[in-house]
């Protein structure tokens, strides 16, 4: 069992045009910047993968990461809860020009839909959004006298996530609050690729401290000193 992959470029080489792509992270925390940029490199070199639906809590910031994907024209649609940031130009410009679609989902519902996708639960009821425009057209039901909205699972063709330690079985740990959506997306995608700061031998991660068990992960690539999106944005960097 060896799920290690030699490079970010190789790790993202199988992502197809038109894919639904989950990208971990909340803002810059837990964002797999090097995998995203490898995907942009591939798109610039080959024109593929394009026409992507990207699932992420946000819709990019500044001119790096997901924002750079949007700038590059690879993204057809965003599924997110908060498509705003300190520098939201990439998404905002395309959205106002009608060049990108948006499916806006409340943050907790987004998390739960992804978890449901990973857990084989095709639909569930939540109080969130009941009576609001984000529930329009969705089935509603009453349980024990309260009203709820039916929400559907969310699955992806591929998830790319950022973790801290990883092993050849795909077991992962995360650093601080960079956990966020990453463990859920690992569960909900047909193929999951994780960039990790360090690959360790199987057994080095205490079985009680594994956050994402390897069964949810297909490939692990080491990026020893990952860039942090927030720092890149503060430094005014652009991935162009």
């Amino acid at each position, binding site marked *: 069992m060896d799920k290690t992959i030699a490079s970010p470029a190789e790790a993202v080489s199988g992502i197809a045009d038109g894919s639904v792509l989950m990208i971990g992270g909340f803002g810059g925390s837990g964002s797999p910047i090097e995998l995203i940029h490898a995907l942009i490199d591939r798109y610039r070199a080959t024109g593929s993968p394009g026409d992507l639906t990207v699932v992420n809590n946000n819709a990019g910031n500044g001119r790096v990461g997901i924002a750079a994907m949007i700038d590059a024209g690879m993204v057809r649609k965003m599924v997110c809860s908060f498509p705003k940031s300190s520098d939201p130009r990439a998404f905002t410009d395309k959205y106002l020009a009608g060049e990108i679609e948006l499916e806006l989902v409340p943050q907790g519902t987004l998390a739960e839909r992804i978890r449901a996708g990973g857990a084989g639960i095709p639909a569930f009821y939540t109080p*969130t959004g009941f009576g609001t425009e984000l529930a329009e057209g969705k089935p509603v039901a009453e349980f024990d006298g309260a009203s709820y909205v039916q929400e559907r699972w969310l699955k992806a063709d591929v998830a790319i996530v950022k973790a801290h330690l990883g092993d050849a079985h795909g077991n992962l740990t995360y650093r601080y*609050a960079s956990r966020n959506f990453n463990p859920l997306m690992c569960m909900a995608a047909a193929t999951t690729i994780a960039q990790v700061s360090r690959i360790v031998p199987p057994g080095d991660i205490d079985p009680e401290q594994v956050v994402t068990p390897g069964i949810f992960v297909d490939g692990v690539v080491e990026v020893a000193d990952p860039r942090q999106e927030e720092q890149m944005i503060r430094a005014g960097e652009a991935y162009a």
Partner: protein
Amino acid sequence: MTWEKLTNTQIAWRAAQGIEDGAYVNLGIGFPEMVARYQPPGREAIFHTENGVLGFGDAPPEGEEDWDLINAGKKAITLKPGASFFHHADSFAMVRGGHLDVAILGALQVAESGDLANWRVGSKGVPAVGGAMDLVHGAKRVAVVTEHVTRDGEPKLVERCTFPLTGVACISRVYTSLAVVDIEDGQFVLREKVPGLSMEELQSMTGATLHTPGPLADLTVPEIP
């Protein structure tokens, strides 16, 4: 008689007095975050942030930020002893599952039914909702901190929200720059108003009837620099 409206810090101070020792609390991004600064002496609330941290503390000194350790507003935070990390589904299980004692949010409008509108003014621009629609469900008490009227003098406490809703019948208390108002059985119940402000004046700045079935107190807060 003259009266003075509360500053945002004073509203935050007043809201902080309503939080019990040991309460689990989520503060909305921006203005509501200020509530954390004014915990009364001897009380310690545990703060929750949607992106998966319980028990966080103040911002670190500038230059010492770790951008893997942030809150829902994407500001750098620190940890207190007893903190924990968890993923987003567990984080919103805490929210939706009724495990938070208090959530305090900002508002565009609050209706006497307890409906809240706080995420979108109209249909223009880029819509963004974040965790607001989840937070209004589940916390045992959901309160609002807000100016009493808009910059244009329009009431923010209304009979019916005209902006898109965040949630239906979800708010139980409103701390404004002029008053403390509870929402009970589809009515605004006035608990406190700033000294010197008459009922008539306050009612004229409020878009629905203020009821006073019980005792009415002065809304007095300390000077906060």
